[in-house]
């Protein structure tokens, strides 16, 4: 009894006790959940395991990126296609959102009243409407208000915009036909062809892809603009005045003095926004774009392996998040040195108004 009270009174042992209790409780909870799952799976005759990944998928995917896919390939290849589609949307979205966000953020902080009004309206309108609704609006615009592919908008006979998407020319790799050894495999310029049935093309941005990318980019750019504006305002006024006294033009001041120092403030919240963008790309399932979530949903419904498919989904997104966070952390380390300790700057208030 004495040793027990001695243990209880000694802080270190008390902490051990608490941790042991927490571990036991957690273990018990996990065991209970696992046990339930095991019983339920057995009772309902649902099979489990990741072996279904090597089965034939049996379904087609509407659009792919970098690799081709047809129904005779396996489930894991289908997941790969989904992942590549997600990466395509994410990369395009990241670039577009960053560029737009930078410009709108600069505009929001500018002294020109009209530009400031524009940028403020843009930011407030886009930030306060959910991404889902913006996505659905873009989809409706692109699918119902664009002309059918039998009468598309066209530019220079090389670009066509219609309900079926935006067709553009490009190079494709032509495999040499099997019976004809004289023609070797080579790159060929392929441009969209317009005939009475519609537009035929090898390169197309479908309205699904366009709507998710545009919605995602605009939405994230509004948040990035706020971050950029806050970062720019955190740069000390003295820096700008010093630059002005050196006869730098406003543009040069922004490029060489303000932005590098603002980058230090901008990078951590920017990481957050990039992560949000990648995670928000999962909304593509609503408009029918075959991204990872859509493929996982299809696989889940066809094989019944809910646990496995959702686990794969979460694992992939987790990995993507970690990779992006790691990359941005390295950028953060680099830009931290733009501003040495001891310089004065206004504390960053993210909800600050101009």
């Amino acid at each position: 009894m004495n040793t027990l009270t001695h243990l209880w009174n000694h802080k270190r042992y008390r902490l051990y006790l608490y941790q042991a209790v927490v571990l036991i409780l957690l273990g018990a909870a996990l065991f209970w959940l696992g046990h339930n799952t095991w019983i339920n799976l057995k009772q309902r005759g649902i099979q489990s395991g990741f072996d279904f990944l090597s089965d034939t998928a049996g379904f087609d995917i509407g659009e792919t990126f970098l690799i081709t896919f047809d129904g005779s390939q396996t489930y894991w290849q289908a997941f790969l296609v989904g992942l590549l589609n997600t990466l395509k949307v994410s990369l395009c979205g990241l670039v577009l959102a960053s560029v737009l966000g930078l410009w709108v953020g600069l505009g929001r902080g500018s002294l020109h009243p009209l530009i400031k009004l524009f940028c403020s309206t843009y930011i407030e309108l886009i930030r306060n409407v959910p991404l889902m609704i913006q996505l659905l609006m873009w989809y409706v615009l692109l699918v119902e208000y664009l002309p059918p592919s039998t009468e598309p908008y066209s530019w220079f006979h090389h670009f066509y915009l219609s309900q079926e998407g935006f067709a553009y020319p490009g190079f494709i790799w032509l495999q040499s036909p099997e019976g004809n050894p004289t023609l070797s495999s080579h790159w060929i310029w392929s441009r969209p062809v317009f005939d009475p049935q519609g537009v035929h093309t090898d390169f197309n941005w479908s309205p699904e892809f366009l709507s998710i990318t545009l919605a995602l980019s605009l939405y994230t750019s509004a948040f990035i603009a706020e971050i950029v504006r806050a970062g720019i305002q955190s740069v000390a006024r003295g820096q700008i005045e010093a630059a002005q006294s050196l006869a730098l033009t406003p543009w040069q001041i922004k490029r060489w003095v303000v932005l590098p120092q603002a980058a230090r403030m901008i990078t951590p919240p920017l990481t957050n926004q990039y992560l949000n963008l990648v995670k928000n790309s999962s909304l593509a399932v609503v408009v029918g774009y075959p991204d990872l979530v859509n493929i996982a949903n299809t696989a889940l419904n066809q094989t019944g392996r809910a646990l496995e498919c959702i686990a794969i989904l979460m694992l992939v997104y987790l990995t993507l998040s970690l990779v992006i966070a790691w990359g941005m952390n390295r950028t953060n380390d680099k830009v931290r040195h733009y501003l040495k300790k001891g310089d004065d700057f206004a504390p960053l208030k993210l909800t600050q108004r101009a």
Partner: protein
Amino acid sequence: MKTHFSLEKNRFLFIFCLSLIFFSEFSWAGKTLDSIKQKDQISCGVNTGLAGFGSADSQGKWSGLDVDICRAIASAVLGSADKVRFVPLSAPQRFAALQSGEIDILSRNTTFSLTRDASLGLHQTAVTFYDGQGFMVPAKMNIKSAKQLKGATVCVQSGTTTEKNLNDFSKANKLEVKPIVFEKLEAANAAYFSGRCKAYTTDASGLASIRSKEAKDPKEHVILPELISKEPLGPMVRRGDDEWLAITKWVIYGLLEAEELGIDSKSVENLKNQSTDPAVLRLLGKSDDMGKLLGLDREWIARAVAQVGNYSEIFDRNVGEKTPLALKRGLNALWTRGGLQYAMPIR
């Protein structure tokens, strides 16, 4: 001295208030039939809105072939065709809802297939509608056959056998169609009618239903003649409950047998009292008590037919020639008339 309100002292009251709200929503149940008898209600999973099979009008009243099957089962088991709670489910969610116990039976134009029987932990009851998958295209495209759909964009709903069949058909005929897969039936419909896809594919009965109800002008859309797959539709129940499986299966066979024997909702009372056909008397519970073997009472089929109708009445009321869907009996005629509906003998 008045101290201010101490949440710590009264936290249990607070939590108690809140938890009362949530406890009312839990469903605690044992085997399916017991829980149905306890709730005095069948939870029936139906379509969110497919005219002729499962759809609700603006007052919230459900109608359709699948809906009527559920009502017949409720009538046989609980005594009244109104003791059903309809749960609308989209295709991706229907199996999870059945597996989890949220619904007791899934009557949602669901195709029987090996994968569904073997790997989803569900059982199929009886086929209520023999169907096949087809295509619908706008009439102005002048397409006469599904084989002309080379490279076309096709709207499909996710979570259905449709995707796989489309792929099989596309590969067999070298069509290279581009499927656009939607989570929701409504989204797929909207995309097709806005012109995003050249064609729409699902069960032929579904196409007829969608064309009749969702199209602005049904004559502007054409259902192509090819049926590219077998789609036997029917209700499904959870695996591991043989009692409930037997009840649902035999109610459906009972409705078919009623049609075979010429019993319909108007004549069931007369025939019960006046018929001399031993098969009729057995079915209606006058001679043998078949219902007892299933755990029901002897009037199980008599009630179901009286309150909902036999198979032909259900068919004609919901998808028959006088309805906007205007489907012929075709494959769904009785085996004695050249169709595939063959009830197992009730004896």
